[in-house]
């Protein structure tokens, strides 16, 4: 009668994959929406904190000192325009009105170079003051202000240069690109994966179990000679596959949009991991999905309808998200194998170990075995529930 497991699985797959609405909302939309959302967020952040690439920064300078005439804006194109005192008021008005071509007005004191050379930091006299006028509501003006401040700070440091820290192009940060990637991925990916996997499970399990109860179709199945355990196994395996595909969609959306979100940071990329890391991750993910699907299925079997099931599952999802955060807190990352018997926490910590490039094989094996064991217990419980008239036919 193993065929009945396959029959139940085939039915679940047919139900899902031939329903365009379900495929769209469960497989395509999560990845697409995350990609679009993160991409827009990345663009929004970069436009908020930086000028557009083709923008030429216009800085109007009154009394530009000779020492600063050779200053340039680094890689950004900058045009310095000399103005007189009488033109300054007009430039400030334009800056206030965010007129095109007015990003910053810098007012230096006359004889700035002489004043700075004569200034004694130990004296009580006022230091020569440079005034930088800008408009914080205009991102180009804000960028021009930041750039000018950096230039002046660097110039000020060079005036009293007694020693240098980390001079030249030598690499002083001993962290490798792999370390940087591992740090970023081990903090973020376990939590994101937990959220995505749980969302995938929530999208399919309540509909398949509480939905069948609600529509009265589960009773039609229970009248057949199919064993309750086969029904439970067939549902859990097929729902796990669909949930993994849904989680994968979200994961791909995230990975593709992450560079945009992080401002095209060159040092962070997923290619630092080897095939063995991905294989270990896959084992952990598979066993995790089995546990989550089992939990959601059992809760859904208790619920009278999809709405009730979703309501009851939500607190469990919040707990799993909180467990996901433990990958970000070093003091909550345990290494003793006994901790890896705790469902969901073990998955987060195993993935944290893999992504930080310090996988602990013993803990990963404990995680996978424990998760498969919990899923087995869950299947037993679910089969008992399918056989329980109070649970199945409660109104």
């Amino acid at each position: 009668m193993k065929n009945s497991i396959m029959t139940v699985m085939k039915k679940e797959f047919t139900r899902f994959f031939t329903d365009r609405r379900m495929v769209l909302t469960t497989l395509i939309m999560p990845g697409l929406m995350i990609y679009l959302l993160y991409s827009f967020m990345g663009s929004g952040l970069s436009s908020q904190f930086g000028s557009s690439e083709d923008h030429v920064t216009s800085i109007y300078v009154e009394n530009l000192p000779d020492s600063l005439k050779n200053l340039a804006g680094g890689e950004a194109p900058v045009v310095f325009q000399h103005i007189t005192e009488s033109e300054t008021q007009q430039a400030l008005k334009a800056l206030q009105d965010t007129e095109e071509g007015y990003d910053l007005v810098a007012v230096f004191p006359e004889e700035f170079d002489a004043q700075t050379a004569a200034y004694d930091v130990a004296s009580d006299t006022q230091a020569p003051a440079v005034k930088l006028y800008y408009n914080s509501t205009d991102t180009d003006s804000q960028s021009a202000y930041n750039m000018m401040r950096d230039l002046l700070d660097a110039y000020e440091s060079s005036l009293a240069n007694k020693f240098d820290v980390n001079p030249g192009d030598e690499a002083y940060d001993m962290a490798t690109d792999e370390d940087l990637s591992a740090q970023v991925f081990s903090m973020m990916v376990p939590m994101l994966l937990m959220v995505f996997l749980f969302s995938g499970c929530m999208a399919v399990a309540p509909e398949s179990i509480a939905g069948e109860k609600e529509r009265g179709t589960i009773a039609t199945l229970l009248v057949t000679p199919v064993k309750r355990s086969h029904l439970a196994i067939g549902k859990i395996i097929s729902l796990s596959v669909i949930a993994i595909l849904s989680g994968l969609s979200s994961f791909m959306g995230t990975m593709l949009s992450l560079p945009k979100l992080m401002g095209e940071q060159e040092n962070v990329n997923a290619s630092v991991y080897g095939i063995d890391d991905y294989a270990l991750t896959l084992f952990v993910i598979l066993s995790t999905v089995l546990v989550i699907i089992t939990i959601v299925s059992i809760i859904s079997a208790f619920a009278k309808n999809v709405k009730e099931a979703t309501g009851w599952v939500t607190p469990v999802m919040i707990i799993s998200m909180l467990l996901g955060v433990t990958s970000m807190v070093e003091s909550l990352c345990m290494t003793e194998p006994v901790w890896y018997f705790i469902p969901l926490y073990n998955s987060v910590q195993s993935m944290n170990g893999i992504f930080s490039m310090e996988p602990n094989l013993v803990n990963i094996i404990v995680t996978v075995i424990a998760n498969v064991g919990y899923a087995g217990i869950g299947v037993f419980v679910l089969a008992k529930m399918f056989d329980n008239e109070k649970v199945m036919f409660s109104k």
Partner: protein
Amino acid sequence: MRELLKVQNLRKSFKISAKQQKIQNTKERIKVAVDDLSFTAYEGEVFGLLGPNGAGKTTTLRMMSALVKPDQGDVLIEGSSVVKNPDEVRSKIGFLTSELKLEEFFTPNYLFSFFSELHGVGKAEAAARKQKLFERFGITKFAEVKVGNLSTGMKQKISLVISIVHDPDIIIFDEPTNGLDVLTAKVVTDFLLELKDQGKTIIVSTHIFSLIEKICDRVGVIIDGKMAVCDTLEHLTNEKSLEDKFFDIYAERAGETYEK
């Protein structure tokens, strides 16, 4: 005649929730739905269960179909016990009730194949049986239409066909014509007579007297979960109509009066 179905001292009770206690204006915590019920159905016989709403007919049929476990007693289907071998019992019976719904997303074709597989019917046998039943009920031209897009009558016909995909010898119908229009109800009634002619054992629960009179050989009258009378239709109706006889029994057993 060979005993195909034997109901032995069946009992089932349910807890009454506080809400239900209020609605029913009772302090009783337990409702006995079926109380020490026994009867036997023989090969090729149509046995009717007659009783008012809440008498325990549906609970009895659910226990016979191994959907609900009895508190006491047993039901033997061709020797298989619903208590000890529920899966075996389910493979031997066909069960149809209006509470059993079909997934509206699927087509009749798909559902027939799906339930045939669950019952372990071979592909060739299932295909031949599908063709025969679909033609008999006029389902063929709707075979690829999703169930959700079909009329209530057509859905009921498909449910009926699905319940007998495995050609069982014992068929249990709970209110088979309930809620159907007269045309569909006639199709179902005629089919029950065809099954009877084929020698199938049929247990049918209903409160429609005309249906009982038309198809049943023997009748069991259930009142308050107990078997009030179990006799042949011929004996029950030799002096009075079935309807009059039923009300006499009801007044006697339930101690209630009724208006003719």
